[in-house]
């Protein structure tokens, strides 16, 4: 068995690809600390093993019982690690200040909205997209806010991480160096589907990025496609399972729901039709479904969606009429 | 703290050990030192416990000083001042009790402990008036805070009655206990029941005092001597009960709008008068004074326990550690109030 991590030769054993300007420095410091650690660890363990064999309790052998005193060596092994620790601190500080300093002028500013359990990125031309696209070689600044709980913006390939704290804007920036697709994780525990709150980061060439921006702002023509498009961008996806892409979250699945009777939390039933969907989007707690009494966790979309956008969503949900719902655990 | 006291030896019969000296201590001095040190450490933990809330206070006052100024006008500094005086006096009686226990003056000891207990009850009585008055106005913590609107009707819920139920029941029980003492002609029971009856009665003294002072604040409310319920009902129709709101409103924009559309109005007082601002102040206010009140209650419990021991004639010059340690605790509770009073009531 060849472990998968040996497969990609562009990556080292320890790290994913170095895809930002920070990565080199971080990896250098990591390697430096690693070697310092080995430098200390190996002699410690070697001495431990050597002593426990050489001085082992055996017939005919009696070691000394007196405690050793050697001030010189005690001072040495206090002072030397202090200096080394100081150096590591200094290197870490330098690397950190590099990340904290204002980014070079002319950054690509992107608004990041973290919402359980979705990412949404707003670009300078007003386009919204669930994946992050950035141009290569240009510093990109993330202006991040959370709509609910703590999240954290983490791109391993860029070696950056910054918590997103509700009630304030947090910032981070990076300058990608290599075109490609990278993982973006939420790294601050945020509830049920924390582990699916991922996105891809596409580092594109300048032209590709421009093309993306132009396309991202257009809503698809086809009504069902447009519904799906909205589903992915308006944070429906975080809670409602649909098709095969959704996360099986706290909300009811869209699959196979259309036209069926819906048992209500307060008792009684209602038909899953246009009226029910549009009411549930605008006022989620009005007819909470049985088993989903916590419908207040869903925000009202009143004023956020236009009439035709709701129609598109209805069309999308309708298209999933015969899809199989996920097996509920 | 009860633990400062040594348990009586149960299984081991060291004849050198008198009953008040625990078997694992060598002598009275060691036992006393251990108890004292334990109590000091406990006080350190108490200070740290409160320090968390003081930090929260500092953080939010630093962030929104105007909120604290606005809200502190809702606190009646007369009531706060009276309570400060009452607690300071109780510190005196507590210190006196320690002295009496060393001198084995049982009568003075029980009297002083009873006086301390009474002061604590007065404090709580005044506090009950303060709390119930605020609740009637809708000054609740955090998300329950109701934006203050001049002239709005106040809640008619008789909060003060609710707060008085437990003390009332206790008063009745203590009186029954006292009668039991008279019937059985037990000196011990009478010694214990006397201070308890007085202390429970003191609570209602505190309530009365609080009502009088609150009424003065209410500008010419002539019903101060009326029953509690009537009183709160009266307040419900007195605009003067929240004069401070009008004082703060520099412009004449009605505050009614604030409650519904806080974002649209940007007068300083209106942005302050909402759940996330004034509500937060009252959260801190209730947390700090509430936790402090629980400490007063705890203190009252251990003082009661001391009274029982004192009535049992247990204290003497070599064994007065428990009184001394409870005294230390009581001084700390006073001490914390001495910080709370200016920080909450005397901001402006």
């Amino acid at each position: 068995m060849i472990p998968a991590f040996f497969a990609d030769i562009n990556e080292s054993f320890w790290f994913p690809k170095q895809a930002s300007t920070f990565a080199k420095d971080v990896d250098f410091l990591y390697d430096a600390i690693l070697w310092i650690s080995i430098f200390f660890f190996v002699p410690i363990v070697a001495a431990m093993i050597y002593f426990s064999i050489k001085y082992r309790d055996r017939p005919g052998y009696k070691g000394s019982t007196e405690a050793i005193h050697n001030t010189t060596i005690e001072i040495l092994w206090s002072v030397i690690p202090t200096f080394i620790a100081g150096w590591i601190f200094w290197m870490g500080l330098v690397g950190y200040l590099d990340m904290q300093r204002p980014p070079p002028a002319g950054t690509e500013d992107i608004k990041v909205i973290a919402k359980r359990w979705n990412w949404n990125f707003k670009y300078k031309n007003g386009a919204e997209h669930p994946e992050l696209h950035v141009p290569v070689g240009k510093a990109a600044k993330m202006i991040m806010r959370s709509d609910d709980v703590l999240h954290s913006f983490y791109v391993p390939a860029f070696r950056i991480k910054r918590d997103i704290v509700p009630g304030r804007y947090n910032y981070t920036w990076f300058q990608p160096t290599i075109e490609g697709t990278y993982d973006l994780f939420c790294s601050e525990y945020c509830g049920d589907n924390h582990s699916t709150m991922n996105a891809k980061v596409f580092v594109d060439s300048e032209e590709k990025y421009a093309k993306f921006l132009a396309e991202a702002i257009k809503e698809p023509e086809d009504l069902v496609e447009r519904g799906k498009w909205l589903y992915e961008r308006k944070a429906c996806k975080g809670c409602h399972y649909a098709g095969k892409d959704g996360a099986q979250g706290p909300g009811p699945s869209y699959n196979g729901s259309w036209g069926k009777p819906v048992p209500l939390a307060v008792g009684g039933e209602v038909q899953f039709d246009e009226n029910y969907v549009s009411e549930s989007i605008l006022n989620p707690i009005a007819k909470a479904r049985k088993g989903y009494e916590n419908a207040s966790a869903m925000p009202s979309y009143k004023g956020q969606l236009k009439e035709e956008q709701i129609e598109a969503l209805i069309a999308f949900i309708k298209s999933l009429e015969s899809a199989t719902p996920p097996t509920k655990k | 703290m009860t633990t400062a006291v040594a348990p009586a030896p149960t299984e081991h019969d060291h004849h050198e050990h008198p009953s008040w000296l625990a078997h694992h201590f060598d002598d009275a001095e060691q036992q006393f030192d251990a108890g004292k040190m334990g109590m000091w450490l406990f006080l350190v933990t108490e200070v740290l416990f409160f320090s968390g809330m003081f930090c929260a206070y500092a953080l939010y006052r630093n962030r929104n000083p105007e909120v604290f100024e606005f809200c502190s006008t809702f606190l009646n500094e007369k009531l706060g001042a009276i309570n400060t005086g009452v607690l300071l006096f109780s510190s005196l009686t507590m210190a006196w009790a320690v002295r009496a226990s060393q001198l084995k003056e049982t009568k003075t000891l029980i009297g002083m402990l009873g006086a301390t207990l009474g002061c604590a009850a007065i404090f709580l009585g005044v506090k009950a008036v303060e709390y119930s008055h605020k609740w009637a106005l809708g000054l609740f913590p955090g998300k329950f805070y109701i934006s203050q609107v001049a002239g709005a009707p106040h809640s008619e819920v008789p909060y003060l009655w609710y707060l008085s139920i437990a003390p009332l029941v206790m008063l009745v029980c203590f009186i029954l206990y006292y009668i039991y003492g008279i019937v059985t002609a037990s000196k011990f029971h009478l010694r214990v029941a006397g201070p308890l009856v007085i202390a429970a009665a003191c609570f209602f003294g505190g309530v009365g005092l609080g009502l009088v002072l609150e009424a003065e604040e209410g500008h010419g409310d002539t019903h101060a001597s009326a029953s509690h319920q009537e009183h709160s009902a009266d307040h419900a129709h007195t605009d003067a009960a929240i004069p401070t709101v009008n004082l703060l409103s520099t412009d004449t924009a009605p505050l009614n709008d604030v409650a519904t559309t806080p974002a649209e109005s940007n007068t300083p007082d209106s942005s302050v008068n909402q759940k996330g601002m004034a509500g937060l102040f009252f959260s801190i206010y209730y947390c700090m004074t509430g936790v402090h009140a629980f400490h007063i209650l705890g203190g009252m419990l251990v003082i009661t326990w001391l009274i029982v021991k004192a009535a049992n004639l247990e204290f003497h010059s070599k064994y007065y550690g428990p009184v001394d340690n409870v005294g230390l605790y009581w001084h700390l509770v006073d001490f914390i109030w001495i910080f709370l009073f200016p920080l909450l009531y005397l901001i402006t």
Partner: protein
Amino acid sequence: MSVVTKPVTMPAPNLVAGEEDNYLTHSSGFLSWALTLDHKRIGLMYLTCVMASFALGGILALLVRIHLWNPNLDPTQALFSNKVYNQIFTLHGAVMVFLFIIPSIPAALGNFLLPIMLGSKDVAFPRLNLGSFYLWVAGALFFLFSMFATGLDTGWTFYTPYSIESQGPVVAATMGVFVLGFSSIFTGLNFIVTINTMRPPGMTWFRMPLFLWAIYSTAIIQVLATPVLGITMLLLAAERILGIGIFDAKMNGDPVAFQHFFWFYSHPAVYIMILPAMGIISELMSVHSHKGILGYRMIAYSSIAIALFGFLVWGHHMFTSGMADVTTIVFSALTFTVSIPSAIKVFNWIGTMYQGTVSLNTPMVYALAFIFLFTIGGLTGLFLGALSTDMHLHATYFVVAHFHYVMMGGTLVAFLGGLFHWWPKMTGKMFNDFAGIVSAAIVFVGFNLTFLPQFVLGTRGMPRRYASYALEFQDLHRLSTIGAVMLGTGLLVAALTLLHSLFYGSKAPRNPWGGATLEWECSSPPPHDNFSSAPTVGDPYDFSNIEYDPKVGGYFKKK
């Protein structure tokens, strides 16, 4: 301090235990245990309960690892749903931290040993001690409730605002933590007072065994840090019940303030966990090398230094939270200062073996395993203390591996070493040494197999608390799961070895290992009152006059 003058004939030093009254047989019946004021019985009750909690936490850990055998990219095919997985790791963390590690060494072993090592009859406040135990039980019940109610899913850190919104029984859990906190505070308070006021004549500060220094430093942290956790938990409960809004961004509160409050306790709590373990290792290394400890004062002072510095570094849990740069940098610098005393201790332990007579028995093998694992745990802390690398490693499996190396490889392994070391003293029974060594070996290999791959997972970017993962991480996760099963097996062998000894073990001599501290001078198990007269106190690490007596299979002190 006057000594009770009661003529006592000291039994011959090499007398086999059993012919005299001991604390186990002193009285019988359920109430004689439930209401006991004897620190040894209380210690034993703690030990039982703490081990039960450990078993519970361990099973939860295995469930986590088994769930992660597959990447679970399709959550419908996973062993547990995401929600249940979150509940499992939350309870694993909470049970292990609050019910097991924090009370394990101080409350269980510390309670048993502290008065005996000190040469006193009991702790200063025996009733408070029993009270602490019942507070622990009450706290544990709260936890069990939150487990069987709707399932707590906030993570053991209770970060706001998620803990405000979570559907789980957060109030019950916070009350549990609150109550357990007071259990811990009272234990610490008791120990400080005992050590300060109840040392017998001759027991000066620098004749105290290092284990007591460690317990003393721990107690300082328990008393100074835990109250802040108490108030934090109270405010969190108030947040949920009253909506006070202090930690809730929706109410203008500050979620990061909660993190400061929480870590102000919980970072020092890390030292509550590790300091007593270091104390145990100091004892074990010296006794089983039959040699005075190197740098006694250095180790004693470094315990206190760690306790004090430990209060100043809590911010390093929040480097990525967007604190002010200056704050972040200062916390990083302070973090590095804590690493030095720990490093010094490791050197001193190794140096103690030099030219000694090393007995490679179960406790010593555990101690050596501790040094190996703790050194890795400590060194990997450097990666996290350095700011730029922490930006990458924070909240990944690297952190998970790091603190398991310290908490489990450190504290748990030391706890097991200490348990084997003092087991003959506590129970009067010798265990099978070979089986003990086998258990240590399996635990050691299993542990490394579990957590070494997690370092790599972390550097490669696998975030923690994930119920599913990308396919590229599968091999490392599987290695880790195999290791976890092995680790569980090793712990089971250790448990069986100890249980076996209870029924089939030979009678333990007074001093089976050749220790010079006071607990080895009373019989095994010790009598109810520990010492009928104040014992003569000597250097706790003077092994020059301790000789082996093959007749009893134990050591005695030459007069």
